């Protein structure tokens, strides 16, 4: 049986304009204890970090260690 996709709003938000994934930065992806962030291509060809898996402990290393302040950790909707 095929798997269904269930939509969920994710807590970690990345500002594409500030993210420097294009320059090879992967700091947020590296520090995440739950390994939920990945780098992806934007429509205009640039790269950005994004939250690929909704498995967040809202702990904040991604936000604290981002060199450009591009990452914001919000509280997951189910508990906010």
């Amino acid at each position, binding site marked *: 049986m095929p798997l269904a996709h269930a939509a969920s709003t994710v807590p970690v938000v990345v500002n594409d304009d500030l993210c420097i994934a294009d320059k090879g930065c992967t700091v947020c992806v590296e520090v995440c204890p*739950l*390994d939920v962030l*990945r780098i992806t291509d934007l429509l205009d060809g640039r790269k950005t970090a994004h939250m690929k898996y909704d498995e967040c402990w809202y702990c904040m290393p991604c936000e604290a260690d981002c060199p450009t302040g591009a990452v914001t950790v919000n509280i997951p909707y189910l508990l906010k």
Partner: protein
Amino acid sequence: MSDEILDGITQIDCDVLVIGGGTAGPMAALKAKRKNPKANVVLLDKANVKRSGAISMGMDGLNNSVIPGYATPEQYTKEITIANDGICDQAAVYRYAEECYPIIQELDSFGIRFQKDNNGEYDVKKVHHIGTYVLPMPNGDTVKKALYRQLRKSRINIINRYMATRLLTTEERVAGAICVNTRTAEFLVVRAKSVIMSMGAAGRLGLPSSGYLYGTYENASNSGEGYAMSYHAGAALANLECYQINPLIKDYNGPACAYVAGPLGGYTANAGGERFIECDYWSGQMMQEFHDELQSGNGPVYLKLNHLAEETVSEIERVLHIVERPTRGHFHAGRGTDYRKDMIEMHISEIGFCSGHSASGVYVDENARTTIPGLYAAGDMANVPHNYMLGAFTNGAIAGEDALDFSADVDFAEIDKDAIEAERARVLAPTKRTDGIPPNQIEYKTRRFVNDYLQPPKVTAKMQLAQQRFEEVRDDMENHMYVRDSHELMRSLEASSILDCADMAASASLYRTESRWGLYHNRVEYQRDDENWFCHTLLTKGEDGKPTSRKEPVKPYIVEIADDEKDAYNKQRVKATATAE
């Protein structure tokens, strides 16, 4: 494509393998390496050592520092013995208490500062029932960075994003570990002369009341692999029925931090704003009172700060919003909660295993040795009760030095090739199917049953039902679980650890037919029974592949406890006359 499943296996050798780079692990690795700089010390983590573990974002202070002039090892050992309801091998606690002060000084030398008063003395606060042990850390947000610098300086071989799945053993001792890359699914076999496990609590066991799988009290990456791996390797686990349950900010599920607020005048209150427990130190007895108040007409329960002066509240806010769980600030802002005006609603956490706060862990002695030669455990997963962060550092240090000595005297043990092949087959089975049940559903169902049937107060028939349900989920997991990439493969392995822990929690709780440790092991059909149950319970993997338990005597006390001191932690409730005033 990222997270693709690749086929591959590599083998490396080392003198000391440390699994888990949170708190105890880095200290263990450092101490082993410093004892013999020529030794090959590997520190492995399924996340990244820079930010892994319970103190990923730092810590607000030491909860259990034994500092000359403020407390003695005798006093601390007595306090923890009483707080843990008498079931305590004091040698490990006493050794911790003796050796933690030099560790504080060493952490200080790493650049982690501790609060001092105007005279330059450590500014230790009283939170416990009897003694004074709480030492604030003004720059506690820097702990992981400071540790990481030391690891790099000492040339520890760090391997990130590899998850250990099983230990390798011989008849006599530990031989190494099998690990899998969390982003490629490639295998790594580590042959090691000694292995230190510092893999944290089993924090993803109960389901938080929010229903969000990762909204746990513990770092959600601490999913109990240390417990599961020890179990499958044949090591003994102690007192698993003494669950970890903590008082937390409701929904946010992080600590409200009475340890920070308490010394500054904050306290736990009921809906009427009245104090109902005398001591905010986390113990099973305190949690029982907390639970009773929640269930009573006086509930819910709150952290009360709104009676404090502005500068005091600002200071509490400053600390709570930069360390340990800094998103606390976002949470309160989102709900418009202001510490100055509002009390903060609290609740009790989901259950877990954690010796750092209670006493459920892998059985170890005062040298951090498990029941398998060459295999060590330290930190939240090792059963030195109420050990907290400083315990992880101190007992991690003890493990590191002892493991290095063990490695110096032995050669590599033989690696069982069949065991490796069997483990590869087990791990990869969900990748060989074309459809089935995803790991998140296996995990959710397990944890929902943990809440339904294992959460105290504990009832025999409910726990037996849990065992039936777990067996059904296990059948689904072993025969129908389906993963599509290496990230999901990591989650499937975590689901397996979680189910193992759930089985152990049910089995251990059924075995001890008395009530002890307040709420942690409140079995409603049984009273406390010192005559038959003043002992540890040790759980191992039985011949039938299921958990089995036995009694182990508590070792004779080093520090005697007078009869009139034994009940100190059982008298938590504020006297009725006092609350009526």
